[in-house]
Structures are given as C-alpha cells and as structure tokens.
C-alpha cells in the first residue's frame, strides 16, 4: 500500500518529485527510490554495512549506554547512536568518564554527539545488553525460555513428541489429511474406550431405554395398522400443506426474490413460467414455491392467452377486445345463467364480448354519465345479452373499463358505441345499485369512465352474481354492480357522494393522475376485466360448468403455482375441475363482483364453499395452507388473486402494467412465453394486451407513485403502501366505485393505458374463462389471479368492487349503509374517501372473492397474497398498510388499526345489524361476527359457514358467510401478513373487512386490493369448483343464476346493490354449502 501510495504520490509530482521532496509524499517517494536504488549499490559495497552480522549486532546495540576507550586511554561514556560503514561510532550525550568516583554529570561535560573514528577506538564496552529488546520475533526458544515470571532461570524446554502418545488416535498428521471419514465411528470409539480405559459402553442401538421396539408380527391387526400408517404417511406427504412446506424449504428463491425484489421480468417470468408450465390442478399444488406470482401470472397468462386477446382484438379496440373477452365470458355468464351458456362461453365469448357492452349498461344504470363511457367501453358488452351482458357487462365493463381506458386513448368512440349497451346495463345495475347514483355522481365526475368502470364492476358483480345466475347476471350484475357501486358508496358514507366523489376524484385524479391511475385502474380494470372474464366464465360457470372449468383451472394453476398447499385445493380443483369452472368462474365472477357482486357472491360462495372448506383448512392453513386446505381451487384462486394482487401491489404500477401486459400478452411474456403463446392462441387479446402493456407499464409506474402517497393517508399504514397505488387506483376505483362504470370510465379517462391494462385483464379473464372453458377455469382463475394483480385490480377496482360494493352497499345501505359506508367510507376516507369507496367496493369484492374461494381459496389467496402481497407489500407495502388499516377499520382484530376502520367496523356492525337487507345484515352480522370472531379466521369461517348454510337460501346468509369467509380469508391473508390479519379482524365484518381490505388496498394499493379481490373472487369460484362444488357451484351458480335474477331481485328487494351481493351470496351459499359439505 505504502508503495502504491508512494507511487501514486510520485506520479502526481513525478516531474520534480525526485529532487524536490517538498511534500511528504515526495519524500516518501524519494525515500522509496533511494531505498530501492541506493541501498543495493552503496550499502552493500560499504565496509561494515556489508557485514550482516556486524550490522545486526551494532544495530541492536543502538540506544545503549557504553564506555568507549580510545587509543590514548580516555574513556568516553555515552549512548550509542549509530555507526558508519567505516565503523565510525557516534555517541550521544557523551562525556569523558573520569577515573575517580563520578561526582555527577555536569551539563557542560556532556557533548551532544561525538563521532569516533574507527581507527581511534580500541574497545567499546556495552553493558547489560538485551539482545531481545528490539527483536520482532519473540517466539524463539530463547525468548520463550526467558519468559518466566520473576524467575531468571533457564527454562527447560521439552521437545514435542508430535503426539506420539496418542498414536492410538491417529497414526500421524498425514492421516488427518488423508482421512476422509467424518470423525470416529462410534464403534471405534467404544472399542478404543474399552481397550484404553476399560469403559464398557451400554449403548443399545434399539434405544430400548427411550422407546419401545415395534413388535412386528403377521397378525391382521398389525398389517392393518401398518397399512394405515403407510396410508397416513402417504396422505400427509401428498398433502398440499406438506408439499407446500417442503417446497418452501426447497424454495431456492432468495428472500429478496420472494419479497423484496421488484422485478417485472420476474413476475412476468413467473407468470410466464406458470402459464407456460400450465399444470393440472392436481399438480399445481406441487408448484407451491412460485405460487404467488407464478400462479397468478400463469392464470393471467392463461386467461389472456385463452380468450381475452382474441376478444379484445375482435372487439372494438380495447374495450371491444376486453369486451369481447368479457362478452365471451359474459356470454358464458349471460348464457351462464344457464350452465350451457357458461359452457358456451367458449364460443359465446366472442359474442359476449361483443355483448360486453352489457357492462356499460350495468354501469350506465348506476351512472348515466358513465354509461356513455361504459358504452364505449362496454360497447361490446352491450352486444352481449343484458343479463349475460351484465355479467358480461360487469366483465365487459371491466374489460370495457380497460377497453374504455384503452379506448379513451384509442377507442373511446367504440366504447361509446358500447356505451349504449352499457347504459342499458347500467340501468340494470342502477336499479340494484341505488348506490349507483353516487356512482353516477362519480360517473359525472368520472363520466363515462366511471360508468365504464361501474360497468366493469357490475360485470364483475354480475359475474360474481353470475355465480348466482348468469342470465340474471345482467340484471343481477347490474344490480350487483349497482349494489357494488352503491355498496361502495354505502360502505363509505361516501356511498353516493363518495361514489361521485370517487368518480370525481377519480376523474379529477384521473385527469392528473388518471393517466397513471387510469392506467392502474385500467390495469385493475383490466384485471377486473380479466376477472370479469374470469367472472364471466365463473359466472357462466357459476351458472354453468364453464366457469368452473375455466375459472378453476386458471385458479388452480395460480394456486398451485402460488402454493403447494393448494394440493388439497388441487384435489379440490380436480373436484372442481368439473366444478372448478364454477369456482373459477365464480371467482372470476366474484372477482368482477369483488366490487359488489363478486364479493357478495364470491363471499357467499367462497365463504360457503371455501368458507366451509377453508374454515377447516383455514385454521390449519390459516396462512398459506388455508388455500390448500379445502378448496384447493378456491385456494389457488385466492392464492392466484392474492399473488396477482400482490403482484399488482408490489408492482403496483408495475403489477398493473405487468398485468396489463400479461393480459394483453405482456403478461405472457412476463409470466411465461407459454402463457403468452396460450393467450395468443386463445385470443388476440394478448396482442392487444401487449400493446396495452407498454401503456400499462408507463401508467403503472405513475399510478403507483401517485397513488401511494395519498393512500397512506386514506387507509392505515398497511393500505398506505398500497395506498399510493390505490390512490391511483382509487381514482380509477372511485370512478368505478361510484359507479362501477364510472370506475371504468375513470379508468378510461385516466388513460389509454388503463384501457390497455384492462384490456389485458379482460382478455386474460375472458381468454381464460372462455377459451379455457373447462380446463381454462383454473387457468383462468390462475390467469385471473396472475392477471389478478392486474385483472384483480381491475375486477377489484372496477366490477368486483362495484358488484360487491353494490351488494354490500345495498345491503349496507339497507342494512347498515352507515356501517358499511362508514366503514368503507372510513377506510376510503382515511385513505381517500372516494378512493376508499372504490377500494372498499373492490375490497369487498375481494373479500367476497376470498370467501368464495373459500377457506382453501382464502388460504391459497392468502398464501399467494402473502407471497405476492408480501411482495407487493414490499414493493408498495400497500397490502401491509391496508391490512393494518383494515384491522383498524375492523377494530375488532386490531382496534389500533385505523380508527376509521374501527369506526367502519362499528358502523358495519351497527349498520349491518340495522341493515335492512337481511342478507346484508347477515353478511354484516356475519362480518361483524366474523370480525368479532374474526380475529380467528376459523371462527369467522365457521360463523360464516353457519350463517351461510341457513342463509344459503337467502342470498344474505351466503353473503354473510362469504363475507365472513372473505373476511376470514382476508383474515387469513392478514394472518399470513399481519396486515391481512389486521384485515381479518377488521374484516371481521367480512364484508366490511373485505371492503376495508379492499378499501385499504384500494387506497393503499388498489392493485393489491383488486388483485386480492380478483384473487379472492377467483378463489371463490375456483373454490366452489374445486371443492367439487364446481358442479355444486354450478348448481349453486345456477341457483345463483336463478339468483342472478334473484340477485337482481334480491338486490332490488333488499337493495339493488345488495342484490348482487345476495346473488353472489346465494350462489356462494350453495357453494358454501357444498364447500362445507366437502369440508
């Protein structure tokens, strides 16, 4: 170093360095040089200096006193200072030593320094010299031997025998090098001790002292028991929980990769991988490690690949595409009302997409202004049958919203065309969505966008509702959507105003942040759309098997990918495979409904099915396992959603973007090429999605940034992180929330990116649900999940929220609007009032979804959510904050959480109780109970379940169960993530919690919420399907289908909004029952 430094110094001053020596550096250099050059030549050649030993001796004498005799006999006394090559000696402080007794040195006698010529020196006597004084190496025999405290005897040093006495141990040191064995063999030790020390070991290899040896015999009894043991071992080892845990142990991903890294590529890769690696439901669980992102992504991819892409392309611009997908889905859904329709989803999807406009209708009702936008967005929806369209619309709206968003950029006009349908639908929703008016307000603010969003939401809700009944879907959807929209408003006191505000805010925000938000929302919407699509499938499936098949598959992939725990779910999925479609669809639906219908429906279904399933599972699985537990599908779906959400949140903007990309095709690339390929194959949506992706990406970042700041405020800490995204989303959400259409509109307004995003989602959802139809369900669900983040966002943001929110809102409104609204509002307000609403709705939707997903789904979702959420959390932390916020909101679990949350809870509780709508009340009560109980997901689940069964018939109960489930799921999620836990508590009021979660998410991270919602929603459907409920689900869905109308009716009756919820609940209830039964 010194040399280097010297060199460095030299270089700088190299020019004059040699001679100048001005600076220390130079001096050093000079020294260095001298030392380097001079010594060799001069020193070596000069006299004494050439004599090493003489130099060594004389040098070691420096500083010692000596007596120097000169030729004339004079003796000088002094300190030996140095010597020259000629052996001239220098003494410092020298004085002439007088012969006689020295009287003492006089200062004048001392000579500072005297140089004696070697030729004058006769003898120099150094007394008492310690040669070791200046030795650097003191570890010599002399040094060691001399170091004896106080004693001056030579220490007798003993030579080391090299451990010869231990020859027994090892022959030599060499053996250590060559010995490969890992120490001594126990037997060798025993032998050695016995030989060497006479110690006899009492070691018994059978350990009879500690245990009882197994007595083997051939008795039948023994064989039976042995077989039983083997079976149990096999079951355990085959369990998703076991595998997931083992997978966790073998998860080679680094902590950063799992939680911190914000790598789009990864997510994309995950998604791609998942998609590419599409794994059968059964096998999905095994993929546990990458569940979160992978599953979701894969689902997304699948979805996107499956149908969305084509539809999108086919449909008008974005909306069309999304719409198409949605439509397809819706078509399925619409037709879904009848299972056949669901199945038809595949074929019908395109038509449905065309129908997508239906979405607009749903929203339109809620929000007039939106309708236009919706129409544009939903233009396609409109084509779709009203009912289907509604679902479609819900989906369509989401899609539309995406589309609309997209459209805004490019194809607003097309949306406009759609708008009419959307408007029509909107009306439908409107009825149910009394709350919608708020939405309308929002729509006013959000204008068409909001309407679109609302539409999307509605579609979602419809989808969720679709679970209830596809045909009803349109109406129901509308109602659900409406309900959702209303719910949001309701939930948030904001309800009307909030919706409006949200729309307005959305609009306003959208205007500024809208681009971002809109994008985000768009992404959300897209996700919603995707969800919607999923929903559609779900819905249709819900009504029919399609959803199950589609939804479940997608869900399953996600779940599987997300969590191995899903194994059970996988089983469920398998079961659901037939039924899965429904779950998925339901989930899809639920997702769309997340806002309202989905949540409500999903919640019921999820709660019911998942709840029952999850109920058991959840406890054990509480975290991740939950999903695996009962409804693997639901779990997967939930997981998927969660992952998606997480992704969404994590990426927030990115997630959305990614999601959008995923949907469009970006997702595929991101997730996996395969997925992309699939998507591509499935639908042109992907292409569109790709196009969108870019936009989405840009938008996402922005939204995330912008949203995050506000959200924090809005909802508690958890949501805070998310909040930014959420805020962004919120704006979007708001539009949506105010009126699902509005949200979409807002999205549209916000930016093409939004549309793009939505489109992708839409495509994804559609593709998955529709195209995948049978298998697709899982994929869809998965896709949805993956998309979930994006799609989830969309659904959550838009349709789901709306749908659920409507239901809730309706319920809430009726029952305890204040509570819900307050709660929702609270969160929203906290985070952002308007946003809150939308988020709330979304959250509810999500919540619902989780329930729908059922325990498994919840678990899955939780797991996925955990993973993803965590990711997201990490990324945006939104989830965490949200959760916390939720807890706060819920108060029950975590009073400390956001006060608003508490208030919400309280309100909810109160509201719920008061809530006019039984269902809502039930839900609310359930939620409240859940909340209260909620602290423990299981309890909630159980309660929910309990309520659900009874209420099963009544939509409400299911909803409540769902809500509870959702809450439970959320709670579960929360548990996995404290945030989630908090949510759970908060979610105690499942609905509320959901809403809160959504809210918080929406606020904090709308994406996350959306995703969650989507996931949940997706989960729910999948759960239903998975549980084997698929068919049941179908039945349920059919019933729901009946319900859809019923839902609508319910919504209308209790509350338009609630109707959706009811529907979903109804559907869910059945589903739940199934789940429970399964469980």
């Amino acid at each position, binding site marked *: 170093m010194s040399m280097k430094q010297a060199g460095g110094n030299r270089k700088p001053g190299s020019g004059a360095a040699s001679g100048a020596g001005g600076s220390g550096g130079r001096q050093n250099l000079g020294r260095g040089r001298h030392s380097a050059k001079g010594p060799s030549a001069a020193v070596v050649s000069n006299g004494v200096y050439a004599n090493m030993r*003489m130099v060594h001796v004389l040098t070691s004498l420096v500083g010692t006193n000596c007596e120097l005799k000169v030729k004339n006999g004079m003796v000088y006394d002094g300190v030996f200072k140095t010597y020259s090559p000629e052996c001239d000696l220098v003494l410092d402080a020298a004085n002439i030593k007088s012969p006689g007794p020295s009287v003492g040195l006089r200062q004048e006698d001392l000579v500072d320094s005297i140089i004696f010529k070697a030729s004058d020196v006769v*003898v120099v006597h150094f007394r008492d010299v310690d040669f070791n004084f200046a030795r650097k190496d003191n570890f010599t025999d002399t040094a060691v031997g001399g170091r004896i405290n106080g004693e001056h005897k030579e220490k007798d040093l003993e030579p080391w025998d090299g451990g010869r006495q231990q020859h027994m141990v090892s022959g030599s040191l060499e053996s250590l090098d060559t010995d490969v064995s890992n120490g001594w063999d126990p037997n060798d030790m025993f032998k050695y001790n016995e030989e060497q020390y006479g110690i006899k070991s009492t070691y018994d290899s059978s350990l009879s002292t500690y245990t009882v040896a197994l007595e083997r015999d051939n008795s039948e009894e023994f064989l039976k028991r042995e077989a039983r043991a083997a079976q149990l071992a096999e079951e355990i080892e085959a369990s998703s929980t076991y595998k997931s845990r083992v997978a966790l142990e073998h998860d080679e991903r680094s902590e950063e990769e799992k939680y911190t890294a914000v790598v789009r590529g990864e997510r994309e890769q995950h998604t791609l991988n998942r998609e590419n690696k599409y794994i059968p439901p059964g096998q999905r669980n095994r993929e546990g490690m990458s569940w979160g992102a992978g599953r979701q992504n894969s689902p997304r991819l699948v979805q996107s690949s499956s149908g969305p892409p084509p539809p999108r392309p086919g449909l008008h611009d974005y909306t069309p595409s999304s719409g198409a997908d949605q439509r397809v889905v819706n078509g399925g859904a619409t037709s879904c009302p009848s299972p056949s329709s669901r199945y038809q989803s595949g074929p019908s999807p395109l038509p449905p997409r065309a129908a997508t406009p239906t979405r607009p209708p749903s929203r339109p009702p809620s929000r007039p202004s939106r309708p236009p936008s919706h129409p544009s967005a939903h233009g396609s929806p409109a084509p779709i049958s009203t009912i289907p369209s509604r679902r479609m619309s819900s989906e369509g709206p989401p899609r539309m919203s995406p589309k609309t968003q997209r459209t805004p950029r490019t194809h607003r006009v097309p949306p406009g065309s759609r708008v009419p349908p959307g408007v029509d639908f909107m009306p439908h929703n409107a009825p149910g969505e009394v709350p919608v008016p708020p939405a309308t307000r929002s729509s006013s603010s959000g204008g068409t966008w909001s309407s679109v969003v609302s539409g999307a939401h509605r579609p979602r809700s419809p989808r969720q509702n679709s679970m209830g009944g596809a045909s009803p879907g349109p109406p129901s959807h509308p109602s659900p959507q409406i309900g959702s929209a209303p719910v949001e408003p309701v939930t948030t006191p904001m309800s009307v105003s909030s919706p409006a505000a949200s729309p307005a805010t959305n609009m306003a925000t959208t205007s500024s942040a809208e681009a971002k938000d809109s994008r985000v929302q768009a992404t959300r919407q897209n996700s919603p759309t995707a969800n919607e699509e999923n929903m559609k499938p779900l819905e249709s499936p819900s009504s029919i098997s399609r959803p199950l098949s589609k939804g479940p598959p997608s869900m399953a992939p996600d779940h599987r990918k997300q969590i191995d725990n899903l194994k059970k779910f996988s089983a469920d999925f398998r079961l659901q495979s037939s039924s899965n479609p429904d779950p998925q669809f339901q989930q899809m639906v639920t997702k769309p409904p997340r806002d309202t219908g989905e949540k409500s429906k999903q919640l019921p279904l999820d709660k019911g099915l998942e709840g029952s399933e999850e109920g058991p599972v959840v406890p054990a699985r509480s975290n991740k396992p939950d999903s695996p537990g009962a409804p693997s599908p639901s779990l997967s779906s939930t997981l998927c959603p969660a992952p998606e959400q997480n992704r969404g949140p994590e990426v927030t903007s990115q997630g959305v973007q990614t999601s959008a990309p995923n949907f469009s095709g970006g997702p595929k690339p991101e997730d996996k090429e395969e997925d992309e390929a699939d998507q591509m194959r499935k639908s042109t949506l992907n292409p569109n999605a790709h196009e969108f992706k870019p936009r989405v990406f840009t938008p996402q970042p922005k939204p995330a940034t912008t949203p995050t700041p506000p959200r924090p405020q809005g909802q508690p800490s958890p949501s805070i992180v998310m909040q930014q995204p959420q805020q962004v989303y919120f704006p979007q959400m708001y539009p949506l929330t105010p009126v699902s259409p509005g949200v979409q509109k807002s999205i549209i307004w916000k930016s093409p990116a939004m549309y793009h995003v939505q489109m992708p989602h839409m495509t994804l959802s559609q593709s998955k649900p529709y195209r995948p139809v049978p298998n697709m369900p899982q994929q869809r669900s998965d896709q949805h999940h993956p998309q979930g983040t994006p799609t989830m966002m969309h659904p959550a943001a838009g349709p789901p929220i709306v749908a659920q929110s409507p239901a809730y809102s309706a319920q809430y409104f009726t029952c305890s609007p204040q509570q819900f609204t307050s709660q929702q509002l609270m969160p929203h307000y906290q985070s952002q009032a308007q946003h809150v609403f939308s988020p709330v709705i979304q959250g509810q939707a999500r919540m619902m979804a989780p329930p729908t997903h059922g325990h498994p789904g919840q678990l899955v979702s939780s797991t996925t959510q955990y993973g993803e959420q965590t990711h997201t959390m990490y990324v945006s932390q939104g989830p965490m904050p949200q959760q916390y916020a939720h807890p706060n909101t819920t108060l029950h679990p975590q009073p400390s959480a956001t006060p608003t949350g508490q208030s919400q809870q309280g309100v909810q509780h109160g509201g719920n109780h008061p809530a006019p709508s039984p269902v809502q009340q039930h839900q609310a009560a359930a939620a409240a109970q859940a909340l209260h109980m909620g602290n423990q997901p299981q309890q909630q689940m159980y309660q929910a379940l309990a309520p659900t069964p009874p209420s099963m018939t009544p939509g409400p109960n299911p909803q409540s169960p769902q809500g509870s489930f959702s809450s439970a799921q959320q709670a579960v999620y929360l548990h996995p993530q404290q945030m989630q836990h908090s949510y759970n508590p908060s979610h105690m009021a499942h609905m509320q919690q959901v809403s809160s979660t959504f809210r918080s998410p929406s606020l904090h991270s709308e994406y996350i919420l959306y995703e969650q919602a989507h996931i949940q929603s997706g989960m729910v459907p999948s759960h239903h399907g998975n549980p084997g409920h698929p068919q049941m689900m179908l039945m349920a869905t059919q019933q729901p289908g009946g319900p859809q109308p019923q839902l609508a009716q319910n919504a209308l009756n209790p509350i338009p909004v609630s109707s959706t919820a009811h529907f979903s609940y109804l559907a869910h209830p059945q589903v739940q029952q199934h789940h429970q039964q399964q469980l």
Partner: protein
Amino acid sequence: MAAPGPGEYFSVGSHVSCLTCLGQQLQGEVVAFDYQSKMLTLKCAPSSGKANVSDVVLINLAYVSEVDIINDRTETPPPLASLNVSKLANRARSEKEDKLSQAYAISAGVSVEGQQLFQTIHKTIKDCKWQEKNILVMDDVVISPPYQVENCKGKEGSALSHVRKIVEKHFRDVESQKSVQRPQAQQTQKDSTLSS
C-alpha cells in the same frame, strides 16, 4: 599490537580471548567480525550478573596484542532476527534525554533526592523537566526543593493529586530501601531507578 595475521579469521560462535593494547583482557563469544575494519564483536558474560542480558564488547583488533581462540564454533550461528529499528531509535533518544536531563539536574546543583525524584517521576510522566531546581511536571505542577509532597504546587486537580501520590510513594520507597541498605547518592539513584 600485532595485527591479525592473514587468514586469521573469527567465525561466529567461537570463543576467543583478547588482550588489548591497554592491557585489558577480554573474552567472549564472537558475534560478528568485520575484516576490513578489523572490528570484532564479542558477547561476554554480563558484568551485572543479570540473566537474559550480556555485555557486548566491540574490539578494534588493530589494538589487540593477543588473540586466542578458546574453542571454535560448534554450531552454525542462529539466523539473524529482524530488528525493530524504530524501537531502537526511540531507546537511543530516550536514553540521551535521560542523560541530558540528569546532567542538567546535576549541573544545576539539584540534590540527589531531587534527582532521584525526578527520575521516578520521569518514569511515570514523560512530560517533566527541570526548571532551575524545580521539577516542572506537565507544565502544571511545580515541585520545588526539598521536593517533598507538600512542595508540590500547582492548580488543584487530578494532576496535582497524581503527582503528589507519586512523590509520596517515591519517598516511601526510598525510606524502605534506606532501611535495608545505606546506599550512597549514586546507589540511591540506582535503587530508585530499579525500584521504578
């Protein structure tokens, strides 16, 4: 005075005996020999009888009349250990300062007790010097003759109290030594140094 004959070399480790022109008989182990300068270095038994130390004699063979090799080297000389030059330089400087300060004190007419005290304090506190007959410690504490504890003056503080402790201990040790032996001034000085 006979110069070493040609080919008359000393191998390291050999024991030789020399008689200088001044009639001084020297015997010891050859540590080093430089032919050009005719300088021979012998390691002799310590005059003080202390262990681990030895006397070293540097002899200019030009002034040696007789050189007898008692026994030749039996073993190869040990390798040379590296030296800590800075440590040696510090020793040289400190030794010089000590001698100068001592000389100053003596020349200033400081009593033996004063010189002893100074040496004692100097071992503990390097920052001490003579100021006339007063010992100035750390530029803060002044010890004036007769150098008793009560003669320590300065700003009240840890420094003063610390110096007083040193002085107090010094005289206590001196008393204890005197009780054992009645050393003269020089002896006392040595004792003081030793004790320190």
